[in-house]
């Protein structure tokens, strides 16, 4: 594994929504092979950061690079095709399409639809339950299954960087465990992972490094150990007990 290759780099990003300043001077970098987590409470700006990376929101200022290519002027689909896949906040599946169709769309948007079979097999190996449900509408899946489908949809695109926005949202605790195991596994197979989480304990458990957002600013960054020990993080994020 090549270490220290900078795969994602945000430099001084500012974003606003209407007149509200959402992000201020965000500097984040993700190296190849890492799991980096972005922590913060509800509304701290995690999703905004991810949406800015994907150019769903236009940043006011700052630069964003992916593998050295500047992407903050590109369109969302171009960024995705460069090799960033995302599991968005709230999954955002296509609810009236079947599991298979959801996956096929993701494959098709990246390349020709021919070699569907092989990729599908791999996905169904990872999540056997999806195979059983493959012709069921995505909207009728259970929360856990939806999460699996969302992550499958991202994985079939064979991204170099997988972005997960609150992937554990709405999952039963047991499933969260499993889910994080899966993420670790995916990472072990070579995909770099950038995830945002409210649930700090869980996320730090699998991450190499982390950033903590508060009111649109990064207040702490560092390795998992540093973050877990940091007083500031405790106060700001986990609350005093």
């Amino acid at each position, binding site marked *: 594994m090549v270490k220290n290759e900078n795969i994602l780099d945000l430099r001084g990003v500012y974003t606003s929504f209407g007149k509200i300043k959402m992000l201020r001077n965000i500097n984040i970098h993700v190296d190849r092979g890492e799991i980096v987590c972005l922590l913060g409470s*509800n509304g701290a700006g995690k999703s905004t950061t991810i949406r800015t990376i994907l150019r769903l929101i236009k940043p006011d200022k700052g630069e964003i690079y992916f593998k050295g290519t500047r992407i903050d002027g590109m369109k969302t689909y171009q960024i995705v095709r460069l090799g960033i896949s995302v599991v968005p906040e709230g999954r955002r599946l296509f609810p009236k399409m079947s599991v298979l169709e959801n996956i096929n769309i993701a494959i098709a948007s990246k390349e020709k639809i021919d070699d569907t079979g092989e990729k599908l097999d791999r996905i169904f190996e990872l999540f056997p339950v999806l195979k059983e449900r493959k012709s069921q509408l995505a909207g009728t899946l259970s929360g856990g299954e939806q999460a699996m489908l969302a992550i499958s949809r991202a994985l079939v695109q064979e991204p170099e960087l997988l972005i997960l926005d609150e992937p554990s949202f709405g999952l*039963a*605790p047991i499933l969260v*465990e499993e889910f994080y195991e899966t993420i670790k596994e995916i990472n072990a197979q070579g995909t770099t992972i950038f995830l945002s989480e409210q649930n700090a304990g869980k996320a730090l458990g699998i991450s190499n490094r982390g950033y903590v957002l508060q009111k649109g600013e990064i207040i702490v960054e560092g390795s998992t150990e540093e973050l877990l020990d940091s007083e500031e993080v405790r106060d700001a994020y986990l609350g005093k*007990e």
Partner: protein
Amino acid sequence: MVDNKKLLDARNVVMNFGGLKALDGVNVHVNKNEILGLIGPNGSGKTTFFNVITGLYHLTDGEVSFEGENITDKTPQEIARLGIIRTFQSSRLWFELSVLDNVILGMYMREKPSLFSSFFKYNRVRSDLEAKAEEAKAILNEFNPDLANNCYKRAQELALVDRRRVEICRALVAHPKLLLLDEPSAGMDPAETKELMDDIKRVRKTKKGLGIVIIEHDMTVISTVAERVVVFNFGKKIAEGDFSQIRLNKEVREAYLGKE
């Protein structure tokens, strides 16, 4: 027998969406002068519970009563008039109106606006509105002087935190008997959260008999403010008691905090 202490009593509430059971036979009551914390993982039915109580959703089965009166089949407006006021998770202000107008509109129910007076006693209506504006400004000032100074800003121009504050102000001026707060501290930093907790405590002190239900993710808030806590998971109530008890409850720990 009607229990005098009980402000709200929801018995065996069931809420179905298609095949999905969002609430599955929940029993919750709120007493007068009490702050009840409502916690549970995301998607456990907390907000749905608020929607059922306020009449936005029509429940599938069960009964809700308020001050001994059955409100199961009442419209949101009737329920609001009885004194149940809520805030929303993603704040729902009237975004094109000014902060001041938002709070003034919170007083809508206190006096039935008459069409006649807006024509013929216009000056009185205006001075009444101005008095209300004054009151609104005062309460905004209590919460955050900065907000009071910016009271002519449109609500859509506010930061998230301020939106929540305005929402709470708006709820308070409606003189509720039961206040439902849906994640009021979301998006606030610790200092702001602390302010909020102080505000809630102050409100409780000044308004006699006010019951508050607060949905929270921030355990600090729950532990400081709530006197009793109800825990939801998958649409079911899994525990009830004071926070220290709840923290020790195994089921809750597993469901909410995860197995460790």
